Structures are given as C-alpha cells and as structure tokens.
C-alpha cells in the first residue's frame, strides 16, 4: 500500500491534474516577472492564488509538509499583496527560491503515482521561505507604501490604489499659495486627455482648508489615458509644480502572449467564465473515441463492399453514403479535439533557456513566433522533448559567452528564435541561433576518428557532414557538462522525431549560427510505410529506411552464407540478407518472383526478402498490446501494429533491432 489512503488515492488523479495546471501557471508568471525583474500586482495576486489552492489541495491529500510549504509561500505573497501595487527591482534570490519551490513540487508530482511514493523533505525550502519573509517584512516599504508610512494621514484611499491607471504625486513649489486652486487648475488641464481621473484630496476647488497640507505633502492624482506621456508632461510642467513623481503604474489587464500577438482562446486551466467553455478530458478517452471512429470507417467500407456485391447500389449511394460522410465528420472532429497549440511548449522552453543561461553565464534573447498553429497532442509532446534538447544544444554549443561575442563583433546577447509554420498536413518548427555555428572540418575530423566515414572526405556534401552530428555518441566537445558532451542529445532528437513520424534538417554557417528544422505531421503519429507480405503475414517498414527494391531472382548469385548467416552482395559490399520466413519461422517456400528490400537505418543496413509488396502508405502504427510487455520489441524486432483499411492487421518491424537480432542469432534459436 502506498503513501495515500484509499480516499486520497481516488482523488490523486484530479489533484495531479489541478496541481500541474497551477504549476504551469506559476512557471509562466515567473518567467514573465523575471524578464521585467518585477512583480506586477496581478502577478502577485496570481501567485497568491496558486499557493492558496496548492495549500488546501495538498492538505486534502494528506500532504501536510507540502501544504505547510505552500502556506508559507502564501504568507509571503499575502504580505506582498498588502503592500499594494507591484514590486520593482525584485532580487534574483526571490526568483531562485520560487523556481526551487516549483521544481520541488514538480518532482513530487512525478513521483506521486509510484506505489513506493514518500513525500520529500520540505525543511530546507521552508526555512528559506521563512527567512525570506522575515527579511522582507523588516525592509522599509517603498512607493506609496513608504509615503503612507511617512505621512500616515496623507495617502490615497485603498480603493484608489486598487483601480488601474497611473498614480502620481505632485508637489508644488514652497510658498506658491492657493495650492488647492493650483492643483484644481492642473487637474482641469489634463482632464481632457484622460478617460478616468481622480485626486486625493477630492474636490480641490473647495479644499481651501487643505491648502496648507497640499503645500506640505502635495496631491495624488490617478488617471487613465491613452496619452499617458503627454499627461505626465503636462503635470510636471504645470505652473508652480516642483515635482511629479510616478508612484504606481497599473495598466488595465490586456491579453498578451509570448508570441507577441493577441492570443486565441486556448483550453488552459478553467478560470471564471471560461469554465463553461473548456473541459479537461483524459487523453486515453480521446484515444478510445478515435479508435472507435476509425473502426466505424473500416466497418462502413466493409458494408459498402457487401452492398456492392449484393447489388444494393441505391442503399450504398443513399444511406450508406450519408453515414460514411457523418463518420468522416466524427473522425475529423475527434482529430481536432486532440489538437493543442504549439505555443504551449513555449513556457517550458523559456524555463530551460533561463536555467542553462544562468548556469553557463550566457545572455540570450528568446524570440517566439508561432501564431495559433496546432498539432496533435502526442506530436506536440514528442516535439517538446526534441526542442528541449535543441535549446540546450543551442546555448551550450552555439551561443558564445558575452565576452566572446563582443570580441567577435557580435551583440553581447545572443539570439535564439523559435518559429512555427504549417504546410499541408505538416508543421515546420525552427530553432535558430546566432552563435558560433557548426565547424564542418571539426565534424569531419571527429567522424574520421569514430570510423564513420564510408567514402573519401571530399565527396561528402555539406548536408551529409552536418548530419553526422546526429550519430549516436557523436560530440565535438572536449568535456562533459551538465547539459552536453555525452553525444546523446541530438541522437535523442532524431529518434524522438522519427517516432513521431517526423524529420530533422540542419543548416549552419561557422561563426554565424545554426538552424535546426523539425518537420512533423500535424495529426497522429502517422508514418509513411512500405508494406509487404510473407505468406499470410503482413508487415511494414518505415519508408524513410527503404532505399531500393531488387528482384530476388536476379540477385540470387550474389547470396552467400558466412558464419551461418546469409549475406548478399550490394554495391560492392556484403550486407545481411534476412529471409523473413526463416527469421520468423513462417512455413512455406519463397516464390520465384520474391522481392528484396534494401533498407538502411541510423546504424545498420541490410536486405529483407519478402514475397510481395503493397503500395506505400501513411499509416498509424499502434503500440503493441500491453499483454506482450515492454521487452517484446527488443526481443523480436516487432515494434507495433497497424490496422489496414480492410481491417487486417499489419506487423510493423524495427529494422535496427531485427538486424541486431539477426547478427546475434535467429529469434527462435
């Protein structure tokens, strides 16, 4: 039995869903705030609410320590809330503390579903937050709070402070007399430029008895205006105005997006009215719905064939056709339900960029241009993982230190640009940097050391050289850092993309920067596959691995047995020839018109002998049934299954695993 009792266990899923939404919200708020080095009033409120909700949800789940930690954070932001207005010039220590809190919670959430879960210790974080709260509450207040403390009787009302707009304090020159009227005239002067205007004290025209106080302490004016600068100029240049100090500046809340444009509504955490518009739906239920929709398509195809065979053309073209169209709409709608905006990857990317820049003392501007483009949820998840690696690479390998950049005549701050475009059925995602670029000579030298060159150096094109960096274990870095040097990052990117049915393209210029372009399908992990048969069995291989088709008859003379394995002469070298009949112990004899497929993966190449081919098609390769376990693929070379239009099931093969198994010995030996 795990940490949670039966009641809490039932609520765990909902708790995790809510907590993830809250931490996502917190992450985005922190990134924005850190950029400005300030917390706006709305950001403080937002963080307060997050902590408040986390506190109570965690308490409900029996996570007492986590609840206490959230409570302490809530206290901290409650204190900030009471100060009124935002906080300018926030210390880095504060952001670091909040990020550590965020990381702690995310780590806890990752582990909570494990049976052996035990809550982590919050002691050190709690001490830090407590200390920080004690320190800040001892500091002198600033802005209006400071002014209010200095002159407790002369301060605008809390209602005025809560309203949006700019609050200025205007002081008049000593001895100017009739200060209340001067203030009144000043207000009249700017009134026409403002959509909203109020002052403290109010009713200045008749505030003669307060003239002395106004002379001593000035007046507070709150205004909202499209011509803010003009208003400030008019105020500061007013007659006998000695100073005009901005005490608070709260813009009315506007929807703004990391993409720099008005963002379209998105299915984010429900808040207020948007609870009516969006629902959180479990993705496995969407998967099930999609399966059912596809199944309906298959069944309707079968129905149409049977109607044809039975001469029921009128039904086929009538009701059956209508049903077919409706089912097509259902499938399309389900596909759309799974679409999520690519923009949602951005906070994660910004966070990783922030962390790596801090650790490596580099400065980078992150530009985002992704619009409203959406892709299937699983594709976005795959791409997100690949992009994290690319961002790390861009900073670690690409962007130089500020000093190096200055010496090279570049701006101290590097630039990384993330952009998304969509084409027909595909989305193109680009990560480009203006760093040092890839050194082709260095890559070639490293490839030579690793024994990767298969032809003379001079015959390699630029694209082929750059693609060498995708080879597993390839790195030109001398030392391993936390982020790179092990030669696994780009290899992972390539594999991740291929699993999503996508591709990676590299362009680079030494000294100027690199661009990595990911092209992935918009919809589910579909893959272009070459399909073929052996007896009653149907198979497929990813089309990107298949390079040539050969006739078995013609190539038979080039086949040899070497050390108990069959090889075939291909382009001047002996490559493994896998007879799928023998490999999988399928009964029957190879037909005369059999075909040989030459395929080349990332590491290995080989030929596969099959009975016949079908047309190449983009298919959905589904995972193997859970019953077969996680090792089935590794043990057999079978990577998945696809359902054909006829309802028949096709076995997807993993070329690399098959070739490895073949070299070791047949599956059944």
């Amino acid at each position: 039995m795990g940490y949670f009792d039966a009641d809490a266990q039932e609520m765990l899923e909902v708790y995790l869903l809510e907590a993830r939404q809250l931490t996502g919200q917190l992450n985005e708020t922190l990134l924005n705030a850190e950029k400005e080095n300030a917390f706006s009033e709305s950001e403080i409120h937002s963080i307060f609410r997050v902590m408040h909700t986390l506190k109570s949800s965690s308490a409900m789940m029996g996570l007492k320590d986590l609840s206490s930690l959230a409570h302490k954070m809530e206290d901290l932001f409650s204190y900030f809330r009471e100060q009124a207005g935002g906080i300018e010039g926030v210390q880095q220590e504060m952001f670091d503390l909040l990020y550590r809190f965020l990381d702690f919670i995310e780590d806890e959430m990752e582990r909570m579903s494990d049976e052996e879960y035990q809550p982590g210790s919050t002691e050190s974080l709690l001490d830090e937050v407590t200390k920080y709260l004690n320190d800040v509450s001892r500091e002198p207040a600033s802005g209006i709070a400071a002014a209010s403390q200095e002159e407790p009787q002369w301060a605008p009302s809390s209602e005025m402070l809560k309203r949006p707009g700019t609050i200025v304090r205007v002081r008049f020159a000593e001895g100017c007399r009739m200060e209340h009227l001067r203030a009144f005239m000043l207000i009249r002067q700017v009134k026409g430029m403002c959509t909203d205007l109020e002052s403290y004290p109010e009713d200045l025209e008749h505030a003669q008895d307060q003239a002395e106080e106004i002379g001593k302490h000035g007046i507070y004016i709150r205004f909202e205006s499209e011509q803010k600068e003009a208003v400030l100029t008019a105020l500061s240049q007013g007659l006998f105005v000695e100073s005009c100090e901005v005490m608070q500046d709260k813009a009315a809340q506007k929807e703004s997006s990391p993409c720099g444009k008005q963002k379209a509504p998105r299915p984010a955490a429900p808040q207020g009215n948007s609870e009516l518009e969006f629902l959180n739906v479990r993705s496995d239920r969407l998967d099930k719905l999609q399966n059912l929709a596809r199944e309906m398509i298959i069944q309707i195809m079968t129905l149409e064939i049977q109607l044809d065979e039975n001469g029921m053309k009128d039904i086929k073209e009538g009701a059956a056709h209508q049903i077919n169209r409706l089912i097509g709409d259902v499938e399309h709608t389900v596909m759309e339900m799974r679409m999520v905006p690519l923009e949602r990857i951005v906070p994660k990317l910004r966070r990783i960029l922030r962390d790596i820049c801090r650790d490596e003392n580099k400065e980078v501007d992150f530009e985002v241009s992704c619009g409203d483009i959406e892709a299937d949820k699983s594709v976005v998840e795959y791409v997100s993982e690949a992009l994290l690696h690319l961002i790390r690479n861009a900073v670690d390998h690409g962007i130089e230190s500020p000093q190096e950049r200055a010496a090279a005549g570049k701006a101290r701050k590097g630039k990384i640009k993330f952009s998304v475009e969509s084409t027909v059925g595909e989305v193109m995602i680009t990560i480009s940097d203006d760093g040092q670029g890839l050194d082709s000579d260095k890559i070639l030298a490293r490839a030579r050391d690793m024994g990767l060159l298969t032809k003379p150096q001079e015959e390699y094109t630029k694209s082929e050289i750059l693609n060498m960096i995708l080879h597993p274990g390839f790195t030109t870095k001398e030392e391993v850092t936390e982020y790179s040097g092990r030669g696994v990052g780009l290899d992972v990117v390539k594999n991740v993309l291929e699993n999503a049915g996508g591709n990676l393209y590299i362009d680079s210029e030494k000294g100027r920067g690199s661009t990595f372009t990911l092209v992935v399908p918009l919809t589910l992990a579909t893959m272009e596959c070459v399909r073929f048969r052996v007896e009653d069995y149907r198979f497929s291989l990813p089309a990107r691995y298949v390079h040539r088709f050969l006739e078995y008859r013609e190539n038979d003379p080039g086949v040899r047995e070497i050390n108990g394995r069959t090889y075939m002469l291909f382009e001047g070298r002996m490559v493994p020839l896998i007879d799928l009949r023998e490999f999988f112990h399928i009964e029957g004899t190879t037909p005369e018109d059999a075909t040989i497929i030459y395929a080349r993966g990332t590491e290995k190449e080989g030929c596969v002998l099959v009975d016949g081919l079908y047309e190449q098609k983009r298919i959905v390769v589904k995972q193997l049934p859970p019953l077969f376990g996680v090792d089935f693929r590794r043990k057999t070379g079978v990577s998945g299954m696809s359902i054909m239009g006829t309802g028949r099931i096709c076995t997807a093969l993993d070329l690399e695993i098959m070739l490895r198994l073949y070299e070791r010995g047949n599956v059944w030996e």
Partner: protein
Amino acid sequence: MGIDNVYDLLCVKGADKTFAFEFSVVKELCPEMQISKMPCLPSYFAGVCNYKGEIVPVLSLKEEVYIEKRKVVIIFAYQDYQIGILCYGEPYILNTQSVQEIQKPETEADGMWTEKKLIQHDGEIVTVLDIEKIILNLAEYFKGEYLRG
C-alpha cells in the same frame, strides 16, 4: 455438492471439452472476427484481431470442431489487459442452479489453461477457466520467460 452462489456462465463446446467463463471478465462476443497472423507468438495464439480499433491478442483453445461451425472470438478484459479466445460454434448460457461442482484432484496446474473449477451439468463435465489467472500468467510469461537470453 451444489454451487453456493447461483450465477450464469458463458459456455462453448469444443471437440472434446466444454468450457465455461464467468461473465465478470467477458467483454463482448464477436462473431466472424477477422484474425490476422502475427509472428513471434507462442503456438497457443491464433493471432491478433482488431477490436474497436485496439489490437487484441487471440488465443486458440485448439478445440476446433471439424464440422463447419461459425467462429466466435470472445473478448475478455482484466486489469489493463485484453485477450480474445477463439471458439467454434454458438456460445450459450448455463445457469449454475442446475450444476454440481466436482471436486478436482489436488494436482499442480498444468499448461496455460488454468482451471477455476469443474462442474457437472446434464452428465457433462464443464471446465470453468480462470481467465484472470490465465491473463496474469501470460503477462508474467512475456515479461520473463519469453525468449529469455
């Protein structure tokens, strides 16, 4: 001895045996389900089928009746797993009110087809298969013994 809790069982006749399944694990009966061959499966698998868009492994009782009968795949679900069992002939329902449980010999379970109990109905012995155990044993097998080394 009579059965204490009276309930229904789903039964299918084989060539030599009659098998029964508890409804708690039966998901659906799928007549004339297309079964596709899949390599690398042990011999007691008939292949895999497409059940509502999901790939489900199908076991064969190897009790095919040689008279042409309709084939039916019974889909079972237990925990995260689904399996199909390929049967021939029409399944029928047996109410345990009219059956007698037979005391099984005290021997270790042999083979894949774990039996829950033996019952007698109208002079016939019916084997009630323990689908939950069969599924879990298969899952363990694929995790461990299958193609080990």
